């Protein structure tokens, strides 16, 4: 079920009403678990078995870790959990890519070895829930979280519908305890949740999907366009992906908030970052902190030699790129970010105080670098990305400019930019958070009207669903 579908707009209020109507916490959680599985099974019911498998494996492994007294036994349980979960992820997400790449490599070496293909669809959100469940196993192993004995509570933690398919990737230490407290219907929480959801819908429907019409027109027909169009599409895509993913995260956080839960922030105005290092403190925060805690630090982090520290950083970002998809484009995207971060670390940018013109220059340079890397993320192949970059530098002509589409993008972008500036620079303007009741409510009604008028309401998928 998509957040931007009519089904969800019916499903969500019904779930909320029933949820708050149930008096006992135990039954509430069971109902929420059933609703979450129902939500997930709307795509392909059989794939709920994978979700259940991942849940069962990590649940049993955590119990095993808890019951084992010795370190070896604990490590064996953790290894079993990691291997089984990552094997499922590999089979469904990476097998075909790995087989194809291996076949190609062998072909270059003169060995013809056709590999069998695995023809199943990628289960929605598999990378998100697998990482969330693995995070729990590791936390239990490290003793950072207490083992959850109640299977249904734990299953709800893995499958909680607002964040099930595209995050934020929650930590057991943060979300699990919230399922043990009876959430009450709180006026402020409900209104805050609704405001977050509406802003999320705005980002998705009025910004991302509008940007998508232009970006798709160019990126899906590269031969029909010149360097000017490549440049414009590549400057618009960063806002499409931001609107799409931050929009999803906000709807998820808002939906959870309505029910009384608090999910972690996933985005903090990433395009205001003055360094790429800072960008990663603001972009997909739940994933970047996951990689920091469970990949970068176990590799040694920066408490090793300088060269090893750079290597660790690079490896973390290449793995992060691969997490996004089974394609060389994502791996190059991750590697690019890793390299830039290493350079920034080497030059000491992260610690440098910046202000005025210097900060503006760094901000501009960061945006350009991030946008350049996004070209690889969006292109179908690395060769296509190369063609786009070459076109931008060698064939910069008048771009394709559908005026109406550009106007819609400009309007939405202006609103988003205003809101982001207001939050980033703490402008003393209050609309959604005004102390006046009428202003707050008018803001909600006006935002809904804008979406009704200018939103792309055809129920397009969210980009991050494929990950």
């Amino acid at each position, binding site marked *: 079920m998509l957040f931007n579908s009519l089904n969800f707009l019916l499903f969500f209020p019904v779930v909320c009403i029933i949820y708050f109507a149930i008096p006992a916490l135990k039954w509430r959680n069971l109902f929420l678990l059933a609703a979450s599985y129902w939500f997930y099974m709307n795509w392909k019911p059989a794939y709920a078995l994978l979700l259940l498998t991942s849940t069962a494996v990590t649940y049993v492994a955590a119990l095993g870790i808890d019951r084992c007294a010795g370190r070896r036994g604990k490590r064996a349980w953790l290894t079993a959990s990691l291997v089984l979960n990552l094997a499922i992820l590999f089979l469904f997400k990476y097998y075909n890519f790995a087989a194809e790449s291996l076949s190609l490599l062998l072909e270059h070496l003169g060995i013809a070895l056709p590999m069998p293909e695995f023809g199943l669809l990628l289960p929605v959100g598999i990378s998100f829930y697998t990482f969330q469940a693995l995070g729990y196993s590791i936390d239990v192993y490290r003793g950072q979280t207490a083992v959850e004995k109640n299977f249904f509570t734990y299953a709800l933690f893995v499958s909680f519908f607002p964040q099930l398919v595209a995050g934020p990737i929650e930590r057991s230490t943060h979300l699990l305890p919230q399922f043990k407290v009876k959430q009450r219907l709180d006026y402020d929480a409900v*209104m805050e949740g609704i405001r977050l959801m509406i802003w999320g819908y705005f980002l998705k429907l009025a910004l991302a999907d509008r940007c998508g019409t232009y970006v798709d027109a160019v990126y899906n027909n590269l031969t029909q366009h010149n360097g000017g169009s490549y440049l414009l599409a590549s400057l618009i895509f960063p806002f499409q992906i931001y609107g799409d993913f931050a929009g999803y995260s906000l709807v998820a956080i808002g939906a959870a908030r309505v029910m009384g839960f608090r999910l972690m922030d996933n985005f903090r105005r990433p395009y205001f970052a003055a360094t790429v290092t800072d960008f990663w403190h603001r972009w997909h925060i739940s994933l970047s902190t996951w990689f920091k805690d469970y990949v970068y630090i176990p590799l040694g982090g920066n408490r090793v030699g300088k060269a090893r520290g750079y290597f660790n950083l690079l490896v973390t970002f290449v793995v992060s790129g691969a997490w996004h998809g089974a394609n060389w484009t994502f791996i190059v995207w991750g590697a690019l970010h890793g390299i830039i971060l290493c350079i920034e670390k080497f030059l000491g940018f992260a610690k440098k105080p910046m202000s005025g013109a210097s900060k503006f220059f760094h901000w501009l340079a960061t945006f350009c670098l991030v946008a350049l890397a996004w070209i690889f993320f969006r292109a179908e192949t690395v060769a296509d990305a190369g063609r786009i970059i070459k076109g931008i530098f060698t064939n910069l002509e008048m771009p394709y400019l559908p*005026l109406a589409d550009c106007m819609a993008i400009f309007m939405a972008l202006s609103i988003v930019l205003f809101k982001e500036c207001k939050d980033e620079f703490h402008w003393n303007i209050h609309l959604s958070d005004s102390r006046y009741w009428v202003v707050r409510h008018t803001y*909600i009604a006006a935002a809904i*009207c804008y979406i009704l*008028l200018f939103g792309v*309401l055809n129920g397009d998928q969210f980009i991050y669903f494929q990950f």
Partner: protein
Amino acid sequence: MKRLIYSILFIVILLFAFDRIGGKILWELNKYTKNRILVKINRIENGLSESVVIFGTSRANNHYVSSILSDSLELSVYNAGLTGSRDIYSQYISLLPCVAYKSVPKIVCLELSPTDYIVKDDDPYSAIRRYALYIGMSEQTDAVFKEAGYYPYYQISHLYRYNNTAIQLLNGLIYSRNEKAEDNGYIPLPPPPHFPDTLKNSDFVFSCDSNKVKYIRKFISLCREHNILLVFTVSPVYLIASPNEYGVLKQIADENGIPFFDYHSAGLYLDHPEYFKDNVHLWDKGARLFTSVFAHDLKMYLDSVGFFKQEVE
């Protein structure tokens, strides 16, 4: 709980007020927009006075030069082809206002495409959404919206009726289009940077949508009821035609005695990529040459059925 109910009620009332006032404002603004598509839809909805009207998608819009047809047939011609009207439902909705007024066209040319009868994965009715602002104007138009399942949503929200057109509407208020380039509905396409270089196969999968066929028959009946001479046409493409691509439509034409001018299967211009903007659109030079051929063929046909004699009588 009470506070929450009051808040939700207040938002709903405010939303309703914004929606209805916004709908009225947009209805008025729509009269002044200069956006090409909306100007054309407004013209069609207010009734056309021309004797010959061409319906179809962007291919109709960009392929039939009204003045050439008009000179050849000595009849007034309007090209009502609309970019994005990629199914028979929107052609049918376009025809409805043309027969609702006193002045009914004498000849209707319907440029067909496989999307007028094949089953497609996406929403088959999506192209009619741009007519949503005219809901409530005619029962037949409303019936199509009801069948599509859109009707209740457009009844609930008047702003939503403009979801497909609002941005074009505003854009048309700010920028004025180049009216000089237009020729009674015909919009010429500029030459492309590169002519199409590969002759690809047409890639449609031909599975017949019975509801679309029903609407083709309704289109025919509507023309017949109003004594309109209906002509089916398919203009050239730079594609290798699949066998029987238009078989279903030709059969319907045969059953109803409708002439079918097929320049697609005939392969007109297959050795002239320089007339095409892309594989399915002629640019102005190609369109002018094609319209001359079509005007000649149509005139011959009209002569053969004694259309001009009837006109004189």
